[in-house]
């Protein structure tokens, strides 16, 4: 039985998945000792919920992959014990969500199924682990120069520095890594030297190293903050940076300390795309 949790659903006003999120939260709170956090009220008045969040485990229910609730949890430094995304759960169950905002038979069936799954055990399959608590979905734009294809994420949450490192910012956390331009230039990456967890990094400070047969590259952090996670898999499989430097090949996650200021020295997709395309074309001449 899921009990003694605080439940943070998304606001879910105008999307079916959001409505399901809210209804599932209500059902969980009506059937056991669980307390709902109002996502809007929590932003304006922390006091009421901070104590609860400290005393109980936290379940986050996001409606869609915008993940407003997860972002809020990250911003408030809350530890997420369990998390589900309604849109994904519906997809996994081959249920197509419509624009309908009324909870009808199909939507109620998802609510009931998730309710039962969540109540089966504290370690139900819907519980994510570690770095999966916040997911980073990339949308790419590509260009080709010669035989090389360059992908650049165009999400507005992704920022770049002039050292070809990116930061995907969610709440007060950022995942960082290198861009396609770096991995294409380095060719086969053979070694990855990660930063230490807990290290305080300044903007443009060193965030580990990667090395190929061509060169050793210091990773220049686009943001300042404390390292809270590193992609340990890269130590054994640094080639994942070549496979996909944005998803499999991310480098580290930082708890941001000064992002509003850091942002002034970063660029967004449009500018980075233009600069990188020109550099790649010039290098190919």
């Amino acid at each position, binding site marked *: 039985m899921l009990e003694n949790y605080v439940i943070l659903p998304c606001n879910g006003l105008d999307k079916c998945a959001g409505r399901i999120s809210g209804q599932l939260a209500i059902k969980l709170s*009506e059937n056991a000792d669980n307390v*709902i956090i109002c996502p*809007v009220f929590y*932003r304006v008045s922390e006091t009421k919920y901070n104590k609860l969040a400290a005393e109980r485990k936290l379940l986050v229910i996001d409606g869609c992959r915008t993940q407003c609730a997860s972002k809020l949890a990250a911003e408030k430094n809350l530890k997420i014990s369990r998390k589900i995304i309604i849109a994904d759960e519906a997809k996994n169950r081959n249920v197509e969500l419509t624009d309908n905002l009324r909870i009808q038979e199909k939507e109620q069936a998802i609510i009931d199924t998730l309710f039962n799954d969540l109540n089966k055990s504290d370690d139900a399959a819907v519980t994510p682990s570690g770095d999966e608590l916040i997911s980073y979905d990339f949308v790419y734009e590509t260009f080709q120069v010669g035989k090389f294809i360059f992908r650049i994420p165009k999400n507005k949450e992704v920022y770049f520095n002039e050292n070809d490192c990116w930061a995907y910012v969610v709440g007060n956390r950022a995942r960082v890594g290198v861009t396609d331009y770096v991995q294409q230039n380095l060719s086969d990456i053979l070694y990855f030297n990660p930063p230490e967890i807990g290290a305080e990094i300044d903007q443009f400070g060193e965030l580990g190293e990667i090395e190929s047969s061509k060169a050793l590259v210091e990773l220049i952090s686009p943001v300042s903050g404390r390292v809270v996670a590193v992609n340990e898999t890269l130590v054994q499989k640094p080639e994942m940076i070549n496979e996909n430097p944005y998803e499999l090949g991310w480098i580290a996650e930082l708890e941001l300390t000064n992002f509003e200021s850091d942002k002034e020295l970063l660029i967004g997709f449009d500018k980075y795309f233009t600069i990188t395309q020109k550099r790649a074309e010039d290098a190919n001449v």
Partner: protein
Amino acid sequence: MSEKVKIIPCSGIGKVFGLMAREAALETVHELCPDTSETVCLAYIVTGDEDAREKITGHNCITVDGCPKMCAAKNVSLAGGIIIEEIKVLDTVKEHKGKQFGSPSQLSADGEAVVIEIATKIAKKTNK
């Protein structure tokens, strides 16, 4: 055509009056004034989402709040929205003393009737 009025309810999760605020906003936007109104998710506004803020900053908004904390009115105002009307669900509810409006997840027939009443008030202000 003039721009659409933004109808913004509070989050209202876990309280019947909050549910009524949301339902009244949606009734207005989808049924009563689909051509003259639209809604914006309050969570996006408070998160600082640029698109959501752009939609309301300097634009006419009607807020719909389920409780005296007035989350919708306060946050829309903070984000730069021009509030042409603050609707308080409790004002209408007080006119229906003794009725049961339902639960946080399901409105009763009385609850639905009051939602229509509130939505009609919002629609009048929207089309004014």
